[in-house]
């Protein structure tokens, strides 16, 4: 394999992942090749259970892949790489119930920042996701959507170079969701963050991404890798009305639909 140029933030080559359950192999990912340039936002879509989260975990160095290679910032991934943050799909369990919300957010900052700086960052990040005045509560004292935003705030406060988000806005209302989308777009643009977002919302994928990757099949492969050719100063109203947006949206939708036999068809009664 040839040396990856430093410009590619994430490089995935021939990635395979297999789980062995009760002696039976479940082949989940097969031969995934994907390259994400620094500063790029790639959205991954695909139906439930395809392997999106598994892919993300391989990039984060949390799963050892059964085959193939993953490199982040040019270095092969063996464990979680430096400067990478993850917002997990199961956000509730990813917060420590024994730490107050502020401490949950400052936890990853202990290595580098003084207490005061940590707290300032936490307050700022929490405000950015629309959470004020909850610093001193425990995660189990706030609502599901608020927990999810705490997890996002924790990742943002960490100021990673690469941010992986697994269905990060699944539990918030529509209004908050678009606000958070815009927040992430703005931060990515301002700080050159490389972003990989798993989402099941196709509008969101097209709105957020420079590219949309469709994962499909069993085992999953990359069924499509679409460039999103929309002006970079996006906004919820004009962008989502752009004909190119609508075209891409339709294309992704049909790609997914092709792969997914509708449940309705499969239900017997």
């Amino acid at each position: 394999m040839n040396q990856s140029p430093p410009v590619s933030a994430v490089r995935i080559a021939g990635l395979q992942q297999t789980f062995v359950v009760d002696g039976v192999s479940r082949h989940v990912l097969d031969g995934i090749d994907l390259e994400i340039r620094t500063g790029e936002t790639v959205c991954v879509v695909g139906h439930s259970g395809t392997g999106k989260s598994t892919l993300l975990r391989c990039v984060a160095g949390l799963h050892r892949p059964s085959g193939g290679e993953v490199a982040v910032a040019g270095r092969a991934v063996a464990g979680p790489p430096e400067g990478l943050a993850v917002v997990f799909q199961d956000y509730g369990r990813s917060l420590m119930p024994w730490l107050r919300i502020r401490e949950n957010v400052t936890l990853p900052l202990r290595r580098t920042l003084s207490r005061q700086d940590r707290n300032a960052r936490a307050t700022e990040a929490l405000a950015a996701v629309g959470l004020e005045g909850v610093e001193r509560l425990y995660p189990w004292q706030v609502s599901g959507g608020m927990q999810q935003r705490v997890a996002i705030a924790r990742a943002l406060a960490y100021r990673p170079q690469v941010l992986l988000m697994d269905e990060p806005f699944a539990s918030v209302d529509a209004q908050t969701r678009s606000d958070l989308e815009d927040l992430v777009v703005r931060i990515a643009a301002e700080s050159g963050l490389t972003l990989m977002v798993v989402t099941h919302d196709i509008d969101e994928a097209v709105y957020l991404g420079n590219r949309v990757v469709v994962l499909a099949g069993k085992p999953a492969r990359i069924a499509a890798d679409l460039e999103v050719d929309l002006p970079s100063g996006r906004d919820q109203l004009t962008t989502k009305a752009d004909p190119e947006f609508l075209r891409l949206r339709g294309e992704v939708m049909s790609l997914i639909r092709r792969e997914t036999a509708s449940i309705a068809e499969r239900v017997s009664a």
Partner: protein
Amino acid sequence: MRRRLTAAAVEAWLPVALVATWWFASASSTSIYFPPLRTILERFQDLWLFERVPTDVAFSLTNLGLGLGAGLVAALAAGVVFGLTPRIHTAMTPVFEFMRATPIVALLPLIVAMFGLGVTSKVVIIALGAFWPTFLNTVDGVRAVDPLVRDVARTYRLRPVTSATRVMLPNAAPQIMVGVRTSVSVAVVIMVGSELFGSSEGIGYFILQSQRSYAIADMWAGLILLGLLGYALNLLSAGVERLVLSWHEGRRTGSTTVAAAGA
């Protein structure tokens, strides 16, 4: 006020009932081994309020405190290391389990030989005994950490110390606390055993001497003292627990839900 009274009644009824039963059942006892509770309590008053406190009680409590402290600290540290490092865990488990299963009574001469007759050897065996319950629970608690929580700690590349103190230990805290409470009572039991040899004072020494000289009421009085001591130590650990596990209790009971509008 009323609520507090009810709470006190709930705590107290069983002990009161048991003591009453004992009192009346033993009132006319002539058995040398089961003297009337009245006699025992009289001896208790004579002995422990407070004649022997500066000598026997102070001596035993010092050993207990040192041994328990050393045992618990060692158990926490070793527990985290073993829990987090499967390789060490794998390599050391047979040796540790073997050591744990070795009857210390058989090794008393060795312990005396190595640590002398003084306080050191008592502290050492108390520490050894107190070590296991907390150690095992710490290892198991740390290993039981939610895999996702572990992933969070890994991806954010927490320093090992931060990870241990902020993630692994708090996560294991509910299980560690039960280990600590077992350790506390085991330590008291072993403290008594440690005064089997090389002693000329201590609560355990007193109990054993009373027994040998057939001063059975004195022996019972000593046992009661130990029970009370155990209860006091447990109150102490329960206090620590309330501090350490307040999040846990809150999450468990949702105790933050309070009917404000007098429902």
